[in-house]
């Protein structure tokens, strides 16, 4: 382990790694600031660029986009009362009043420092926890893997969206899409309709670019309101003018908030580990906690500094938390980690228990790099404050058509095939239909990603047991995961019934 760790450090200290990370942070900050776009779409579109980079710089580029993207969402939240990403929704409560009081610079810097702390702390936990968890997971056989994936799919179906049945339906749909291609046991070609390029199944990158970017393009084209934030940025009071007054955040002010920031980081990490919840919920939870613990709760909603620091710490701490199950178990927690999983796989790294054993130096380089990337995040973030406001002046009618062409290049580049472009468009329509009808997308994506492994593990288990389902009950860890799945299912049904009765 220590040999891998030190080998990883030598891989990390290269100019290409720093450059890739800084570029990722710049792109993430700008794209996160634009409502409608966000880290998921940004990472998906950038994946083709990473084909031509070594593993460590490419991952530092994408993870830089991921980390900075969430912080970027707070810029439009603070300046224009509109979160750039859903995770920044709680930042609006106190960030915008601060901007109205002429303290936008202070709010943005607090958001930046809190984000950097959340990132660094969660990545430190990731560094400590992921490898031992992966070592435990190495002992898992096919029944345990199948039961674990079932648990992950149950949780994600239960917590994504408003209805568990809807989450379950799209999760099953994702599993069904994953059956296209070669059968994992007998090698029979399934549902390809004579198209040889589909024998490997639907490619992940076109699938997720379609699901998120193309569906977003369709949603945006139907919006009655022009993107309010961009209109405000162009016509209303300029964001930069709000940066002119009380800009300074002292170390003492941040130090006074250490307790709530630590709690917020822990909330973010814990929720990040659970699949499907995302970074919006922990931001609200930590905001509520900050208000509860504050000596001046009446200041919340009127421009309290803790009201910005707490949600920003929590939503950024989710990044490290979400990477724990991804790297150690191969289970993505949300859409953006699913995209990152795709990027890992394209680089020849399969996240899961074997990742630390087979690619130790690269993984430690990435983990250590994530902690160190706090420094460029702070420097670049401070430098970009004024310029990020200018990006918001770009028109939606300019951004989204360019995104469409970028999506085509991104999908084509996976296999240099127009079939993948067609797949991307098809899943774009499916994603749009889901969004139009209030069906959550993350279960569909996670079901698709985990589908092949799930089927393989399940069928291998049945091969071992000569077709008996008792194999899942006789093995204690698998049985434990199954019991947890049932508990999640029952609690979700009870919760939705209680919510219905209350309404």
């Amino acid at each position, binding site marked *: 382990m220590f040999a891998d760790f030190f080998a990883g450090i030598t891989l990390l200290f290269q100019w290409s790694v720093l450059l890739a990370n800084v570029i990722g942070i710049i792109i993430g900050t700008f794209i996160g600031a634009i409502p409608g776009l966000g880290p998921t779409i940004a990472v998906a579109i950038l994946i083709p660029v990473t084909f031509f980079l070594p593993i460590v710089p490419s991952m530092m580029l994408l993870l830089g986009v991921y980390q900075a993207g969430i912080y970027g969402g707070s810029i439009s939240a603070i300046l224009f009362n509109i979160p750039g990403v859903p995770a920044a929704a709680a930042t609006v409560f106190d960030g915008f009043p601060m901007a109205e009081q002429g303290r936008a610079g202070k709010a943005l810097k607090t958001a930046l420092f809190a984000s950097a702390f959340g990132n660094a702390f969660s990545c430190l936990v990731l560094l400590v926890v992921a490898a031992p968890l992966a070592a435990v997971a190495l002992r898992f056989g096919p029944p345990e893997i199948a039961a674990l994936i079932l648990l992950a799919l149950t949780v994600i179906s239960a917590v994504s969206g408003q209805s568990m*049945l809807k989450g379950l339906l799209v999760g*099953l749909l994702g599993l069904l899409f994953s*059956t296209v291609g070669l059968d994992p046991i007998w090698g029979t070609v399934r*549902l390809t309709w004579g198209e040889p390029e589909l024998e490997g199944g639907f490619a992940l990158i076109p699938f997720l670019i379609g699901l998120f970017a193309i569906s977003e393009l369709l949603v945006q084209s139907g919006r009655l309101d022009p993107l309010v934030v961009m209109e405000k940025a162009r016509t209303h009071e300029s964001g930069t003018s709000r940066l002119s007054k009380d800009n300074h955040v002292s170390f003492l002010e941040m130090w006074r908030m250490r307790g709530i920031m630590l709690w917020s980081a822990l909330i973010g990490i814990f929720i990040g580990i659970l699949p499907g919840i995302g970074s919006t919920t922990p931001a609200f939870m930590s905001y509520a906690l900050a208000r509860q613990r504050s000596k001046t709760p009446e200041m919340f909603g009127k421009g309290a500094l803790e009201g910005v620091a707490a949600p920003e710490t929590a939503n950024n701490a989710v990044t490290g938390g979400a990477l724990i199950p991804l790297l150690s178990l191969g289970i993505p927690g949300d859409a953006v980690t699913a995209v990152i999983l795709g990027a890992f796989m394209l680089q020849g790294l399969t996240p899961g228990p074997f990742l630390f054993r087979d690619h130790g130096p690269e993984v430690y380089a990435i983990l250590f790099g994530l902690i160190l990337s706090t420094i460029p995040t702070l420097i670049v973030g401070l430098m970009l404050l004024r310029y990020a406001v200018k990006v918001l002046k770009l028109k939606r*009618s300019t951004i989204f058509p360019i995104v469409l062409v970028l999506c085509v290049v991104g999908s084509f580049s996976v296999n240099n095939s127009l079939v993948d472009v067609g797949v991307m*468009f098809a899943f774009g329509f499916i994603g749009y239909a*889901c969004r139009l009808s209030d069906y959550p997308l993350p279960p569909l994506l996670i079901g698709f990603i985990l589908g092949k492994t799930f089927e393989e593990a399940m069928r291998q288990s049945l091969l071992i047991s000569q077709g008996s389902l008792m194999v899942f009950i006789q093995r204690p860890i698998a049985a434990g995961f199954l019991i947890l799945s049932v508990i999640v299912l029952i609690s979700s049904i009870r919760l939705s019934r209680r919510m219905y009765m209350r309404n």
Partner: protein
Amino acid sequence: MKDRLFATIFLILGIVMVVWIIPVGIPIAFVPPRQIGPQFWPEVLSVAITVVAALILLTPVLRRIRDRLTHPRPSSQTSIAEHKQGAPAEHSHEKRAKDGFRRLAPWLTIAIIGLYFLLLVWVGFIVASAFALVATMLVFGDRRWWTIAILALAVPFLMWAFAVKLLHIPIS
């Protein structure tokens, strides 16, 4: 309403999968006794999709029946009054036309995307992308002709150069 339409589509899809798509799309393979074949898992998922879609469709009906049994039905006068109160104000002709266009816009975008794909096959990346940019910008409400022209010319060419010359992706 839309969610139930979506569930209906998937109810039908689940049935069609089991009855037609899976038997035709997956050849029957030799499978040793007590083992499952390549058709089994897609069949299980299709049946599960059908069941869940049916549950989504049935849940509101069952809830309505339960509510009627437990609560008395409100009088029709109240509901008409509520309806009148909640009715949207009369829209102006211009606003209605604008709303109508915005409602149509996603479908126009879908048509553009379909055409874009065909053009990618027929005439290649640069021309197809120029068309897609112009058409999408117009659907998004942009009428700055010089911007549209510049972007339609510059973006496809720059992307092509970036992909082909720098990343060696043979998109053409």
